[in-house]
């Protein structure tokens, strides 16, 4: 994975090869124009930040407003007091606590299993020399080209035939297989020093021990990136849980939003935005705290290309 994509840091400027007098002359000419450009750039950047950031701020503020503040003309920008009535109302209309617990549970278990499956599979693909290894690798990689949206109808029928509608396993199991994670892990494992693993082999460490005691500790940044991407995807996943679950007690938070729209009406803004805040805020916090790793994972596809 490329460092620039992860950190967005400025690369150390390459040493200018031609430090000729002409170059210095150009350097002296630049500041005036550069200052104007910087000023314009700064204004544009500030405006872009404002426009891009305003919707989230507006959501947060609206979720705290009373109806008379929400439906005031001209707009009332700030609520008079921090009023949590919208959150209480949302929790009365749908079992918000249960949905939150469902989302947390499914996200933790789902991404944990997904990462484990990916790690094991990648280890096998890199460190076990068996005849069908390349075929298996192709099977895993080609799955990347089959988006889950294409297979919803047969998968729905299959899950229904297992009696898994309205169950946690029905939401979880069809999405567990890891193609992207396996691929990233494999790419990383290929860069690990073979000597360490050969030493482990000589010490009599079995594959299981080698994976967890040697390979995993040497791969923590990649694992963190893949885990965070899985967490975000599991938390936000909508289409599949929406199809599989219509029992409010088994729903995840995003699916609960649909239920809330049906119960409260499409334009009960205060209540809807309170629930929307409950859905988005946890991911936003994860993003703000672990930004580097998360961005690294989400942009990893670009770097391999």
């Amino acid at each position, binding site marked *: 994975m490329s460092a620039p994509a992860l950190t967005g840091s400025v690369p150390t400027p390459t040493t200018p090869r031609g430090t000729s007098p002409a170059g210095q002359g150009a350097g002296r000419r630049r500041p005036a124009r550069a200052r104007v450009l910087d000023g314009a750039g700064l204004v544009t950047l500030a405006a872009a930040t404002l426009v891009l950031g305003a919707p989230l701020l*507006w959501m947060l503020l609206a979720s705290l407003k009373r109806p008379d503040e929400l439906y005031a003309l001209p707009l009332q920008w700030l609520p008079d007091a921090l009023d949590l009535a919208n959150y209480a109302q949302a929790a009365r209309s749908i079992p918000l606590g249960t949905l939150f617990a469902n989302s947390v549970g499914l996200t933790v278990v789902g991404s944990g299993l997904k990462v484990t499956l990916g790690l094991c599979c990648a280890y096998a693909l890199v460190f076990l020399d068996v005849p069908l290894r390349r075929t298996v690798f192709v099977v895993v990689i080609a799955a990347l080209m089959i988006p889950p949206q294409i297979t919803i109808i*047969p998968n729905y029928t299959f899950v229904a035939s297992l009696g898994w509608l309205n169950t946690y396993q029905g939401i979880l199991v069809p999405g567990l297989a890891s193609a992207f994670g396996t691929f990233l892990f494999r790419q990383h494992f290929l860069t690990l020093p073979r000597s360490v693993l050969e030493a482990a082999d000589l010490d009599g460490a079995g594959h299981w021990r080698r994976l967890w005691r040697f390979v995993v500790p040497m791969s923590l940044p990649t694992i963190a990136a893949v885990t965070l991407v899985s967490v975000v995807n599991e938390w936000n996943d909508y289409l599949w849980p929406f199809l599989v679950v219509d029992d409010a007690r088994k729903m995840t938070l995003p699916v609960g939003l649909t239920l809330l729209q049906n119960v409260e009406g499409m334009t009960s803004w205060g209540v809807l935005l309170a629930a929307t805040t409950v859905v*988005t805020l946890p991911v936003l916090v994860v993003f703000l705290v672990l930004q580097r790793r998360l961005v690294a994972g989400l942009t990893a596809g670009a770097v391999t290309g």
Partner: protein
Amino acid sequence: MTAVLAPPSGAGPTTPPVPRPHPAPGAAARRRRRRALGWFTLLAGPNVALLVLFVYKPLVESFYLSTMQWNLGSPVARFVGLGNYVEWFTADSTSQVLTTTAVFTLTTVGGALVLGLGLALLLNRRLPGRGLARTVAFAPYVLSGYAVGILWLFIFDPRYGLLAAVLGWFGVASPQWYTVEPWPLVMIVVVYLWKHLGYVALIYLAGLQGVPQDLRDAAALDGATPARTLRSVVLPLLAPTTFFLLVTMMLASLQSFDVIRSMTQGGPLGSTTTLMYQIYQEGFVNGRAGYASAGATILFLLLLAVTAVQLRFVERKVHYA
């Protein structure tokens, strides 16, 4: 998706080991190979089994279902050959669905690339506050599409929305975003752009940081204006990045569902029904699983075509696309 392109570098030899002359080591090697095979099955098996069961099997089933007249949950299915495809291609709704899909895909991809490049160029300069700008721009990308749809519906509210207020400052009356064409489609395009802009900008930023400063300095020395440098030096060097983003964003746009579902449900009068949304609608609302599977096959072929184009071009590693 580019995953596929990475060279299979560094993988160990895959040729079977040379048979040894002595029987005893041969037996040991065989035992070792059997054990390796056992471990391989144990470690890779579960993941591969899940892929087969929930990705490959349903893909094949989907092709099969597309040749059947079958309603979701119905015990009877009738083989109709290519009947569903013929119906899809001759249906009145198809031209609207294809137009909507094309307009949505082209505007979201084109808009995200142009605006994302602009943002990346800004972020690439050492301006104060660019760290904050980067965080703010990328944040929407990690949020639930469904939730984002609801939050924007409120902003678009023609009476009490933030946008109506902003337009009011300029003496413009808010359009009827929810109900009057083409505004519902414009609305979901705007939301989609907002959600993906930061991603595109960050990928472009990584690309920009790979453009050697020498080249820009050289262009400046030759008297090139910043605009000229951008057009003649930076953009050609960014061509692989642009191409990658073009493909990735097209694949994402063609599959998008959450935002449409939460904002417009494909309406009004089907004006925001993309091919992806139509598959859901036919399969799960109208229960026409066979017909919807034909739609899914068509979408799959479309996605495959986009990926194939990518494989062809990126393999050549062209700088001047």
